[in-house]
C-alpha cells in the first residue's frame, strides 16, 4: 500500500482567555514548527475555573502532505501517527486550510495559522471522531477526505479536540492528547482498482465476483486482456 511521509508538521498554542469562542478563534500565541520530540499536549482543550468564570486555551496540530502524485481515485486511506501520554480525549481530522505552512509546506507554521481551520464554520471533516491512543493511531478518512486527496496536490490536515474545540461545548476540565513527533507521521492510501475488462459475456464486471470458479481478483488476464 503506498505511503506518504508528512511534508511538514507542527502545533500551535492558542491564546488563552476567559471567553470560550474567542479562545477558539483568536490567533495563536506560539507556533511550534517541525517538533521532533514527544509533546503531551499537541492537541488540547484547557480549562481553569479561575475566579467566577474560567480560562480557556486550545492547542491544534497541523500536518501537511504532498499529494501531487495521487491522480486517480483513492479507495481508502489512513492517517497514521504515534500517540503519547494522552488523556481520554476525542479527536477529529479536519481540512487544515490551504494557507497553512505558507500554502506549500515551505514556510514554518505561524501563529496566524491557528484558525486556518476556520473552526466555527463547519470545516470539512476528513475523519469521524476517534479516541487517541498512546500507541499507533490509524485513522480512516471519510469520503470527503478521500476526494480531496485526489483534487488537491497540497493536503493540510488539522487535528483538534472534537468534543470541545470543533463542537460548541466548553470544557469543564483540561483534556490533552500527545503526539510522538519523532515518529514519522504518514498517510497510507489505496487506489481504487482499475481493469481493462468492462464486461464479460455482456455482464458488467462490477457484477462479477468469479469466472470459471476462479475469484476474479486472482485472474490476471482473460483472452490476453489484463484484468
Amino acid at each position, binding site marked *: 500500500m503506498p505511503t506518504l511521509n508528512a511534508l511538514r508538521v507542527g502545533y500551535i*498554542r492558542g491564546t488563552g482567555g476567559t471567553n470560550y469562542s474567542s479562545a477558539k478563534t483568536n490567533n495563536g500565541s506560539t507556533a511550534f514548527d517541525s517538533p521532533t520530540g514527544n509533546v503531551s499536549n499537541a492537541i488540547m482543550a484547557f480549562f481553569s475555573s479561575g475566579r*467566577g*468564570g474560567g480560562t480557556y*486555551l486550545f492547542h491544534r496540530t497541523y500536518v501537511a502532505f504532498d499529494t501531487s502524485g495521487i491522480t486517480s481515485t483513492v479507495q481508502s486511506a489512513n492517517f497514521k501517527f504515534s500517540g503519547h501520554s494522552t488523556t481520554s480525549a476525542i479527536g477529529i481530522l479536519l481540512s487544515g486550510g490551504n494557507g497553512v505552512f505558507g500554502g506549500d509546506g515551505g514556510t514554518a507554521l505561524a501563529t496566524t495559522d491557528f484558525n486556518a481551520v476556520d473552526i466555527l464554520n463547519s470545516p470539512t471533516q476528513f475523519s469521524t471522531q476517534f479516541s487517541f491512543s498512546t500507541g499507533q493511531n490509524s485513522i480512516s478518512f471519510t469520503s470527503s477526505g478521500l476526494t480531496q486527496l485526489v483534487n488537491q496536490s497540497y493536503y493540510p490536515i488539522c487535528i483538534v479536540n472534537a468534543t470541545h474545540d470543533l463542537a460548541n461545548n466548553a470544557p469543564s476540565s483540561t483534556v490533552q492528547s500527545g503526539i510522538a513527533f519523532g515518529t514519522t507521521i504518514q498517510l497510507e492510501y489505496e487506489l481504487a482498482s482499475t481493469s481493462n475488462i468492462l464486461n464479460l459475456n455482456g455482464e458488467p464486471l462490477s457484477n462479477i465476483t468469479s469466472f470459471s470458479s476462479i475469484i476474479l481478483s486472482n485472474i490476471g488476464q482473460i483472452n490476453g486482456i489484463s484484468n
Partner: protein
Amino acid sequence: MSYLDKTLTFESDKIYYYDEIYGGSFEVMMDWEDSLMSASATYVCQNRGDILEIGFGMGISAGYIQSHSITSHTIIENHPDIIPKAKAWASGKSNITIITGSWYDVKDNLSTYDGLFYDTWGDDNMNQFSSSLSTLVKTGGVATWWNTLSEENNYYNIPNVTYTQYSVNPPSNSYFNNTTYYLPQCQL
C-alpha cells in the same frame, strides 16, 4: 493537577501560581481590587449581624468586614497555602471563625447569615452557588460575589440582582482586564 494542588506565591501586591500545562501564571488576587473589596464589605455588612465570607485570598475584604460593627464573621478557605495565613490573621480577633475546606462540603453545617461575600478561585462547585444562596442567607439578608463579567449580568445567572459600577484600572492579569467593575447586589 487542580488549583488546590498548586503552590501559591505570595507577593505584596498579589497571589499567583504557575500552571505547567497552561504554560503561564494565574493571578489569584491582586491589591488593585482594594476599593472593590471595601465596597463589597460595605454592602454585605449593611445589616450588621452575622457575615459569611467564602474565600479569604489576600484578606483585604476580611479586613474591611472587620471594620464594620458586626456580630460574627465566618470565613471559609480551602487552599492549604492560604489557610495558615487566614488563621494567623484571625488570631486574637474574638468574633471570627475560620472553617477550612470546600464551602460546598461544609454548607449543611453552616448557619444562615445577614450578609454573604463569595469570592473563590478554582471552585469546582461554583455552579452550585446560585442554588445555595437561599440556604445560606436569611430572608432580607444580602449577598455579593466577585463578578467577572463587565456588564450588568453575572456568571451564576442569579436573578433580581442590581449593580453598582466602579471604575478600575487593573494591570494585565488572568481574571479581570476591564475598566468598569459591576458590583452585584442581591437581597434575599
